[in-house]
């Protein structure tokens, strides 16, 4: 058993599961948005705003943002633990990544409910 306190869920299985579930959410949202744009090739501001004013769409978008944050954290944590062997530098990069992820999530919530 290798212990590590910086991974998303401590357990490898948990990280693996979260990575897969969030990937499905990212795919579903991408397909939805691409489908919406294909069905409305001449989409205007009113239609776009109406779409995001819908509570269901806001919940879906929040789910996307949270999934994206978890997915990105697990992926980038893997990259940093592979390629940055120096513990101090690795922890710093991970801390910056975590802070940026939090800022993006908070900012995205502000945008979603600001439409």
């Amino acid at each position, binding site marked *: 058993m*290798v212990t*590590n306190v910086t*991974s998303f869920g401590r*357990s*490898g*299985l948990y990280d693996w599961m979260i990575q897969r579930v969030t990937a499905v959410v990212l795919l579903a949202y991408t397909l939805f948005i691409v489908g919406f744009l294909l069905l409305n090739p001449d989409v205007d501001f009113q239609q776009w705003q109406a779409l995001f004013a819908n509570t269901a769409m806001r919940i879906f978008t929040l789910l996307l943002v949270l999934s994206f944050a978890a997915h990105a954290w697990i992926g980038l944590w893997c990259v940093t*633990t592979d390629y940055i*062997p120096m513990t101090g530098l690795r922890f710093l990069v991970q801390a910056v990544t975590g802070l940026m992820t939090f800022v993006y999530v908070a900012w995205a919530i502000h945008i979603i409910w600001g439409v």
Partner: protein
Amino acid sequence: MLVSVYRYNPEADDAPYMQDIHIDIPGGKDIMVLDLLQLLKDKDPSLGYRRSCREGVCGSDGMNMNGKNGLACITPLSAVVKKDKLVLRPLPGLPVIRDLVIDMAQFYAQYEKIKPYLINDQPAPAIERLQSPEQRAELDGLYECILCACCSTACPSFWWNPDKFIGPSGLLQAYRFLADSRDTAQAERLADLDDPFSVFRCHGIMNCVSVCPKGLNPTKAIGKIRNMLLQRAT
């Protein structure tokens, strides 16, 4: 033909270098790479490499031949030589002791971690623990591993974290004991593997499968371990 061999003697050389040697194969025969190494050693007795059984059983002469890991003794020149040139390097990712000889301590440390022996807490029967032919068949494709390290040293996840990721060879062996009907320590074995490094550093690129000289499939075994972990946790 031209053979380019990785040379490094830490007592004499500041840094490793490639030694180019032109050599004629007697009779132009399609000999094994190990036979070629013997010809090179006849020319230059200071060349170091490991070998023993010369028939793909002992796993001593794993090396990197024209960029691909394999056993020198069962790899004919026709399978690896390109444009009449052969580049021989030690297995990548582990410390070099000398020339083509690597220090496999990290590889063995990972093997030791998975407890590569049967654990059974029940009283021993009078003669032996029996298995049905079906239970025995579960071990096929697993027990044949000869620990040559060709797979683990072809794995980038093992290169970056050789102290934390068990590696394809160790995980194939881990599944060999998880799948054994006579073993009673399945829960403890799985609990030891459920961290972000031991198993889950495998991203399924299958370098291990493409280089295994015994034709085994560590990626499949790792998938089975993951499914067992998943079964246990959901």
